[in-house]
């Protein structure tokens, strides 16, 4: 429907949009009485930039995040800052090449300067496709050993998958903001929300489709919902007679299937509030309800 032009006599008041925007502002003020933005950096190691692209694929949501919640203080592709600065949250994309001295130096520096280190995406969490490297490639044939960042530094939060979805990164940003800057109640909720991702960071740096067999089916927990098959980025999982059948040669070790499985973790305290949490995230992103 085309929006009708406002009459000339009232040039300041455009119809619809302005009013809607005001509403949202009031709403967000109520829910987030906080002015301080958190500082976020994107640290690029041996990855394909797909995770950053996924972050950017929040489109106008990215601007909302950067306007209201987070200052992007470091990001080789988007910000003109050369050295890793102090920051609240470091989103690290990619694994670490042991033969690349500057990568090793920078990941250590990241740990020193960031309050919270998030392994963004499967390469940072589990090595992912870089696990398959054996060196000998042009033009740095000696670069053959790639490790998930968790093998070199302590990591606080895991966000696996190749790439983690735009919405997952968005949710983490909002929750990280609430955790650092929210009211007590919001801090509690954000803490509960982030806990399973913190636990994942403690679980280890290896992932594989085999996790479904080892940690779900072998443990007597699989009920055949099919979520793993939907989450696999390379379609290596097929549901056969109600259980995942994994094509292990296809698997890129991204950890998406296990992370997304409802029987890897399922926190009732958070899940039972799915409706209000969705509303909080929507309102934080400026998307009102009706």
């Amino acid at each position, binding site marked *: 429907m085309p929006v009708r032009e406002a009459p000339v006599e009232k040039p300041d008041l455009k119809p619809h949009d302005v009013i809607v925007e005001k509403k949202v502002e009031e709403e967000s003020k109520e829910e987030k009485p906080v002015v301080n933005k958190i500082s976020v950096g994107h640290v690029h190691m041996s990855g394909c930039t797909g995770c950053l692209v996924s972050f950017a694929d929040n489109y106008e949501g990215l601007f909302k995040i950067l306007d209201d919640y987070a200052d992007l203080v470091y990001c080789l592709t988007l910000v003109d800052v050369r050295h890793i600065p102090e920051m609240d949250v470091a989103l690290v994309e990619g694994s670490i090449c042991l033969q690349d001295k500057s990568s090793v130096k920078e990941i250590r520096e990241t740990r020193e300067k960031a309050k919270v280190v998030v392994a963004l995406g499967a390469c940072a969490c589990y090595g992912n496709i870089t696990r398959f490297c054996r060196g000998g490639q042009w033009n740095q044939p000696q670069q053959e050993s790639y490790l998930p960042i968790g093998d070199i530094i302590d990591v606080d939060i895991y966000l696996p998958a190749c790439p983690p*979805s735009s919405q997952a990164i968005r949710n983490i940003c909002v929750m990280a903001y609430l955790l650092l800057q929210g009211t007590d109640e919001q801090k509690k909720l954000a803490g509960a929300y982030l806990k399973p991702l913190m636990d994942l960071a403690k679980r280890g740096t290896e992932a594989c489709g085999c996790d479904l067999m080892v940690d779900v089916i072998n443990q007597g927990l699989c009920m055949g919902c099919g979520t793993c098959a939907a989450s696999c980025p390379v379609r290596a999982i097929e549901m056969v007679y109600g259980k995942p059948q994994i094509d292990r040669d296809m698997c890129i070790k991204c950890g998406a299937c296990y992370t997304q499985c*409802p029987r890897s*973790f*399922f926190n009732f305290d958070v899940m039972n509030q799915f409706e209000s949490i969705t509303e909080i995230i929507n309102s934080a992103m400026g998307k009102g309800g009706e």
Partner: protein
Amino acid sequence: MVLGNYKSVCSARSTDSGILSGAQDGGIVTQLFAFALEEGIIDGAIVAGPGEEAWRPEPIVATTREELLAARGTKYTISPNMSLIKEATRSYGLDKVGIVGTPCQIQALRKAQLYPVAMRDVPDKIALAVGIFCMENFPYAGLEAIVEDHCAVKMESAVKMDIGKGKFSTYTERGAVSQIPLKATHKYEQPGCHVCLDYVSNLADISTGSVGSPDGWSTVFARTKIGDNVWAKALAAGCFETKPIEEVKPGLELVTKLATTKITKNQKVLDGRANFGLRADGSAKALRNPYL
């Protein structure tokens, strides 16, 4: 809290005889999706469609009333409906997805929305999640054993299967009914079901099942804002006949009883898993708990 949060509950059945004829009970799921499809509330729905083998469902993305009708009725085995959740928004290009699922599948759906690590563009596209009541499920081979060995009915000859009043019943196309005590089916249950703490799809937008309502009717909970809204619209459109739940037998009391039974039983299983093994120092070695 065994019945979860809900805004309203009633006993209902579809007013569409075409839907009711092949429905398990009140035809709620089929009618809801048919209505939502017609109204543009959803673009399509993931349902348990007919598969290659008799009574082995395949999840399908139904985008027409005909496809929905073909998926009527309960199949007592696994249909991995969540396996199509991303595909529905991708290959099928749906912006408003409907999905029906067992309580565990609805849990998986909500996790996919709140932690959508590998669920790009899925979280914001779920328009209607209908959950069904579920005590447990059977692997296909288990269902085959129940129907063919215990009930002595060929899978191809069965036209309906039903669980109720402590019995598993198989109906054939010639009108024969073969019943066995439900107890005999327990050993075929899927192990993963024994750690499930949800009977009535607490996290669905709308959940439904036969328990609590008279034969041919279903109990319906409208739970979320979305669910409440769709349910109200469907009622206003005359899609359903309803009765207040207080006025029907056996009513919510039975739903509560069965939900409590399931949760208590499975909580015991979970407690048992915590003390499953033994460490050298005599302390317990646990199996993995998915809820920690």
